[in-house]
């Protein structure tokens, strides 16, 4: 059965075309699929929601353009929530390429909620050193950031006046797609006991479940789905909720391809056809 063999070895380009269609169509014609909120994202939301107005929240946006699709919507949603609750946001990044992204995120969130620079938020920009910066913030914020990104001394900014370490901050939110989150847990939470909420890419989210169980982190926002759930909680429709339509359709396409492939395998076995392309070790 040559058609069975063809099904077992579909040209990759056909698969790519199907995936491309699955991504583009919902972005052009939104499906507006509902979003179910999971307990971990709800915990992150409630941790921030419980803070009294005027509380200082340190948000570290440690990501670069390659993963901004998952983390930028998360950043915007969290900051919009903070601004709605009249929390004061001190934002920073540990990635050099994160400077433009972080500034863009805070500008978009501020514009949407009417937040004003220096009164409602401060953008500190990039500082290299990862662990050194985290320890430095715990000991002396002004030692790490004497001025903000725009050159204004921290003492001149209402948001950062009187803030010199984690002790004056009610919450630390780390949004990252790399192992820098481990350092935030180790230093900001482990050493300085700052309450910590984590946002990360979907593939990394399960790494942090143990920390959530042990209450080392108060909430976890994982991937675009987590960002979409957070957007749903703050009752907005952003890039994450729009992106979930595309992700849903692509997942269905992949499932359909897997079913087709296995159907073809079953038929080939029944017909005694031994030809089948090799695959990964689990399928040997």
């Amino acid at each position, binding site marked *: 059965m040559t058609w069975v063999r063809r099904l077992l070895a579909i040209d*990759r380009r056909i698969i790519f075309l199907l995936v491309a269609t699955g991504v583009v169509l919902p972005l052009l014609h939104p499906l507006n699929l509902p979003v179910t909120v999971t307990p971990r994202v709800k915990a992150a939301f409630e941790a921030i929601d419980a803070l009294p107005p005027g509380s200082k929240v340190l948000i570290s946006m440690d990501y670069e353009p*390659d*993963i901004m699709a998952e983390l930028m919507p998360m950043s915007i949603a969290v900051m919009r929530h903070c601004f709605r609750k009249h929390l004061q946001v001190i934002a920073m990044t540990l990635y050099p390429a994160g400077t433009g992204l972080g500034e863009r995120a805070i500008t978009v969130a501020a514009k949407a909620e009417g937040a004003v620079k220096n009164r409602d938020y401060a953008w500190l920009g990039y500082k290299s050193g990862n662990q050194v910066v985290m320890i430095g913030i*715990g*000991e*002396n914020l002004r030692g790490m950031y004497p001025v903000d990104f725009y050159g204004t001394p921290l003492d001149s900014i209402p948001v950062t006046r*009187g*803030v*010199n*370490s984690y*002790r*004056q901050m*009610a919450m630390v939110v780390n949004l990252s*797609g*790399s192992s820098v989150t481990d350092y935030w847990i180790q230093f900001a939470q482990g050493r*300085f*006991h700052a*309450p910590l909420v984590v946002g990360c*890419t979907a*593939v*990394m989210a*399960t*790494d942090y479940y143990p920390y959530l169980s*042990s209450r080392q982190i108060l909430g976890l926002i994982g991937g675009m789905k987590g960002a979409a759930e957070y957007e749903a909680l703050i009752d907005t429709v952003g890039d994450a909720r729009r992106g979930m339509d595309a992700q849903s359709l692509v997942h269905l396409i992949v499932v359909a391809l897997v079913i087709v492939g296995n159907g073809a395998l079953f038929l080939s076995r029944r017909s005694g056809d031994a030809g089948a392309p*090799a*695959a*990964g*070790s*689990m*399928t*040997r």
Partner: protein
Amino acid sequence: MPVEGSTRGDRVDPTLAAVLRSGLVTQALDTRWFDPSRLNILIGVLLFTAFLIVNIFRARANADIYVRPIAGLKALDEAIGRATEMGRSVLYVPGLSDMSEVGTFAAITILYRLAQRVAEMGCDIDVPCYDPVVMTVLDGAVREAYSKVGKPDAFRPGCVHYVSAQQMAYVAAVNGFMLRELPAANIYMGSFYAESLRLAETGATTGAIQIAGTDKVTQLPFFVCACDYTLLGEELFAASAYLGREPVQLATIIAQDWAKAAAAAAVVTALALSALGNPALMKWLGAA
């Protein structure tokens, strides 16, 4: 925020705590020479070191140590042989991390032993590097490997080369190499992140035999799906000892097993005691 001392659980003078909370005085006041909340980790490390030393002495006294076969490591010889027969190179990707990651050290130790076999078999090896410090270390290790088997002239300068410290630029370069040079064997050892599937899937399209090992648990499923053999977790760290077959090195694998057994026993004991109403051991294990 609750009043805190320098470490969780310590009783702190309220005046000192208030001063610390004001932020006017820094954490630099800490004058303790030992953090008691980390005693459990210290005991664990000392115990592990003791296991290591005991097994090294055992190995020196009796060199016959059994280590179960690991398919991925046995396949390394097959991969190098395949590359030699086909007249193509071996591509070794040492991961996308720097020298602060232990996975990188594992990649270096494996490459040192692998390069000796490559030199003996007479095929070529290419090692694109993500981090410049790692590149200098790997270059030295591969050169020494060639010298060790008596073929220093066979070392091709530039076989260990720096590509880029940007994740996706590195992946693009390595994928390009795979598609142009068509190496017969792709070996991925070290710390990998989101690029793991890109690398493995592109390698699969070229028909190369692929062997992977990473300490990053989140990337294991991708390697399992796309590679022919995958070293799971600690097998990566056991690999250098397995390949070298030196008794002292193999003894460290036994020490790891002893430590695992001790950890499992501690967890089970703590769970049992906790169920019986005494959570002290569980709290102590999780203190740090």
